[in-house]
């Protein structure tokens, strides 16, 4: 296929797809609507025990005493495990699954031995005959925690003499990018604008809490049914419980939301330990309160941007200083930080760039993966900074962006040139135009409009040498089966594979069944994270289906007496392209092939591009396979008396390369808008000395149906992505630009910027009052 110059040539029109690109009812939808689809917590086994986790109730402490004897003695309690029962066991928390190789030694204690580093850190596991008994047993566990000095702010944690939480100096990761000559760039600038932005913790708030059921089967294999984004954790489980890798089997289920919160192990290891210990099935379901303290949150970031710009609006230099709160344990902090560093300048041409990013340990809740993974936090800052710089030189915000957008074929911050189209300009233009004229302001209600553009990767870091496998086969009756380990976290990961397979095989979606997420039985597809599932597993599925198709077509061609490239398959039929009367049904062809032993299935592996690490000093190299570009435009009203913000209009424009299912793409965009709005305005995790004081959904407020506008989705398809049929990824990109667009709209409405998210009504009132105070002072001085 000839390489398309995306900068100059329009994309080919979508004329040739029969299933791809159509709003088909997803394969998983009817079962979910009927209430028939089981989730991990819906499985039970006879003799099953119920598990509860006992947790530390302060953030920084020495465990002086832990006495579980009374709990053990309670009638109906079968097993209580503490660190004393796990002498030298640690668990790996570095990049989940995939190669099975650890890159970093970030192993940690499974249960607290001596030192508590965060509020909620697990002390003991209880397994009992009933949930009631397990709950009663929790109250019988006695422990004494002696508070030790803790540190709850990353900048405090960097100071000499600060309590050390990890390593020797609390710095768990750092990344640098140095491109061009920033000193020269700043010298060239007419104006230099500096701002610091702060982003908060965020809770994934998937509606299904972490849950799983484990048992030992007749082959001594530890089976774990669990709600997870990563079935490849079986390796880490096996290592931690000291059994061979082929003796742990993780069976996923349809997952009730992940968003990165089920990317690290959650309940798997506890279940495996208890199943081994008791030799009975064991079930652990987190309460919502467990969930709030039981899985890693989004990293809070402090980002300081210094931008040099000419009066004509050309960016001459950008310096970015980032500090991320890694919380009590490292988990995926180094990678989140790397994403942020790579994303730091945004989708703009910045020839002179300096980025210095550090992740710092504290006694706060540990932080890890969350939709956007550092690239989102960077966007929250760089898009606000773009508005501020435009304001400083008196230029229209859109025009300023336009003068600096990266174009197709240009290198990003690491010097890498994305292989696909960069259509940020078109996306911004369309989203902004769709906002239209502002709603009229009324009394104290002011109106503001804002936009944010973004660059967000899809596919994992290329130094991970990522791969994904899928198997496609055709039954003797012509029905299609897809088998892949991919976990389905609700975005239609499995249905998309079905849609791809049937497109290639020329049949229709109701003819396919997809079996997924069983680490023993389905080919391993890798994690459902990093916006990689469609790209990696979609490509693997397409490869497998194409191999089968090739063999079927070859046999059909023989039947028709033509060359294979004269044969096509569509709508359950096989026919000669120029002579459609020469045809047979798909089923007829399959029967012939079955009879003749033609191989009607294929297992394929798709490999992402492999690269080395980025240069440690300059950050140059390839970090990701490719990037998605787009924009989100917002109109808000702000009640200047109370600070309340309403989002009135929400318009997204993304180049997704090629929709597999437009309804699914819209669904991601609309959902990402809710997640981003909550992040920008109402979701706040408050901690006091590391103790969470917003531990449920009545304190932690995500947007409800009364809080969000309907989202308008403008979908562009450049067909230039490296996913199947030219698709790019949309999962994380859908969320990335929303919060800064809202922040920009609010600043537009009230004329002053709140630099810290969430932009609460109280922060707005305070910012307006401070600005008015400054104005007053200024006025007095002139007298």
């Amino acid at each position: 296929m000839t390489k398309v110059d995306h900068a100059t040539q329009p994309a080919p029109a979508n004329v040739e797809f029969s299933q791809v690109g159509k709003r088909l009812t997803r394969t998983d939808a009817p079962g979910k609507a009927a209430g028939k689809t089981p989730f991990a917590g819906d499985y039970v086994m006879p003799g099953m025990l119920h598990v509860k986790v006992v947790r530390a109730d302060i953030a920084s402490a020495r465990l002086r005493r832990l006495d579980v004897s009374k709990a053990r003695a309670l009638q109906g309690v079968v097993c209580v495990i503490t660190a004393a029962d796990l002498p030298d066991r640690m668990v790996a928390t570095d990049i989940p699954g995939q190669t099975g190789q650890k890159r970093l030694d970030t192993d940690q204690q499974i249960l607290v031995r001596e030192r508590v580093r965060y509020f909620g850190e697990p002390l003991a596991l209880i397994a009992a005959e009933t949930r009631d008994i397990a709950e009663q047993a929790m109250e019988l566990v006695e422990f004494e925690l002696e508070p030790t000095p803790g540190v709850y702010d990353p900048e405090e944690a960097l100071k000499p003499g600060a309590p050390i939480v990890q390593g020797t100096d609390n710095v768990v990761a750092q990344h640098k990018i140095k491109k061009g000559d920033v000193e020269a760039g700043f010298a060239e600038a007419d104006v230099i604008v500096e701002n610091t932005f702060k982003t908060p913790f965020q809770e994934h708030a998937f509606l299904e809490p972490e849950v799983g059921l484990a048992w030992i089967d007749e082959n001594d294999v530890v089976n774990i049914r669990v709600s997870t984004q990563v079935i490849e954790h079986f390796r880490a489980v096996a290592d931690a419980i000291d059994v061979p890798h082929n003796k742990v089997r993780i069976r996923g289920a349809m997952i009730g939301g992940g968003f990165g919160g089920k990317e690290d192990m959650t309940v798997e290891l506890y279940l495996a330990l208890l199943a081994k210990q008791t030799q009975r099935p064991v079930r652990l379901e987190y309460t919502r309160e467990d969930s709030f303290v039981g899985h890693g949150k989004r990293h809070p970031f402090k980002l300081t941007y210094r931008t040099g710009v000419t009066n004509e609006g050309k960016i001459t230099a950008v310096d970015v200083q980032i500090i991320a709160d890694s919380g009590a344990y490292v988990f995926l902090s180094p990678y989140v930080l790397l994403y942020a560093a790579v994303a730091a300048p945004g989708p703009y041409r910045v020839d002179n760039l300096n980025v210095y990013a550090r992740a710092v340990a504290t006694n706060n809740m540990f932080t890890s993966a969350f939709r956007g993974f550092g690239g989102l936090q960077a966007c929250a800052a760089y898009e606000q900074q773009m508005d501020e710089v435009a304001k400083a030189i008196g230029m229209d915000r859109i025009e300023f962006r336009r003068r600096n957008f990266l174009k197709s074929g240009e290198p990003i911050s690491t010097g890498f040139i994305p292989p696909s189209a960069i259509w940020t300009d078109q996306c911004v233009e369309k989203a902004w135009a769709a906002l239209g004229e502002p709603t009229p302001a009324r009394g104290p209600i002011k109106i503001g409009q804002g936009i944010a553009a973004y660059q967000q990767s899809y596919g994992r870091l290329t130094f991970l040498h990522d791969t994904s496998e899928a198997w496609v086969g055709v039954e003797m009756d012509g029905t299609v089966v897809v088998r892949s380990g991919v976990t389905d976290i609700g975005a239609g990961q499995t249905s998309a594979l079905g849609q791809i397979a049937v497109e290639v095989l020329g049949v229709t979606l109701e003819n396919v069944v997809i079996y997924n997420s069983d680490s023993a039985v389905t080919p391993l597809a890798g994690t459902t994270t990093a916006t990689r599932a469609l790209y990696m597993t979609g490509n693997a599925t397409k490869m497998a289906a194409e191999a089968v198709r090739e063999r079927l077509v070859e046999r059909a061609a023989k039947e028709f007496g033509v060359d294979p490239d004269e044969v096509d398959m569509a709508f359950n039929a096989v026919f000669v392209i120029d002579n459609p009367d020469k045809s047979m049904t798909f089923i007829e062809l399959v029967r012939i092939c079955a009879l003749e032993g033609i191989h009607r299935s294929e297992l394929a592996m798709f490999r992402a591009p492999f690269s080395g690490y980025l240069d440690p000093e300059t950050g140059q190299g390839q970090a990701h396979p490719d990037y998605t570009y787009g924009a989100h435009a917002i109109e808000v009203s702000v009640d200047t008396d109370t600070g309340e913000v309403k989002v009135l209009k929400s318009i997204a424009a993304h180049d997704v390369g090629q929709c597999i299912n437009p309804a699914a793409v819209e669904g991601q965009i609309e959902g990402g808008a809710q997640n981003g709005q909550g992040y920008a305005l109402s979701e706040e995790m408050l901690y006091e000395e590391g103790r969470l004081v917003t531990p449920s959904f009545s304190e932690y407020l995500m947007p409800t149906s009364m809080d969000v506008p309907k989202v308008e989705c403008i979908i562009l398809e450049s067909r230039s992505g490296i996913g199947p049929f030219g698709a790019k990824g949309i999962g994380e990109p859908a969320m990335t630009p929303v919060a800064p667009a809202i922040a920009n709209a609010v600043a537009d409405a009230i004329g002053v910027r709140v630099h810290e998210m969430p932009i609460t009504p109280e922060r707005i009132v305070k910012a307006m009052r401070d600005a008015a105070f400054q104005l007053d002072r200024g006025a007095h001085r002139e007298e």
Partner: protein
Amino acid sequence: MSREKMITLRINGRNEETSVPPHRTLLEALRELGHVEVKSGCEKGDCGTCAVLVDGIALDSCLTLAWMAEGREITTVSGLGEGDAPHPLQQAFSDGGGIQCGYCTPGMIIAAKSMIDRNPDPSEDDIRIGLSGNLCRCTGYTKIFEAVTEAASVMRARGAS
């Protein structure tokens, strides 16, 4: 001293017996009886995933004691629809992209039904108010509003629920 009592719950038109103590919630009792279509999200009335109809009105089953539900008609999402034919709400949610992870779906459909039964032609605002107790993290609600509007129109046309 065991406080357990044998109670009969009438679920989706069938009587089901279970022995439960006073503190057992309807959510726990339903799931123990195998009605795992009723989901648990927070157990404190914040999220709506556990909603079921009790005498036709949507309640959070986590805030309802099982003993108090005796003698009432309980309907879960599995009890909607006729045989193999899905209820218009199930059809509309499924076909319109109103379902992503599906975990909030049973409670959302129950809440929507309860609202439509009392307000057969709901405006978008009515729908927002009717569903404000059902949290969804995946869909952003847009396609849910559309599904409920579509289903309400089908239900009006049929003249029955």
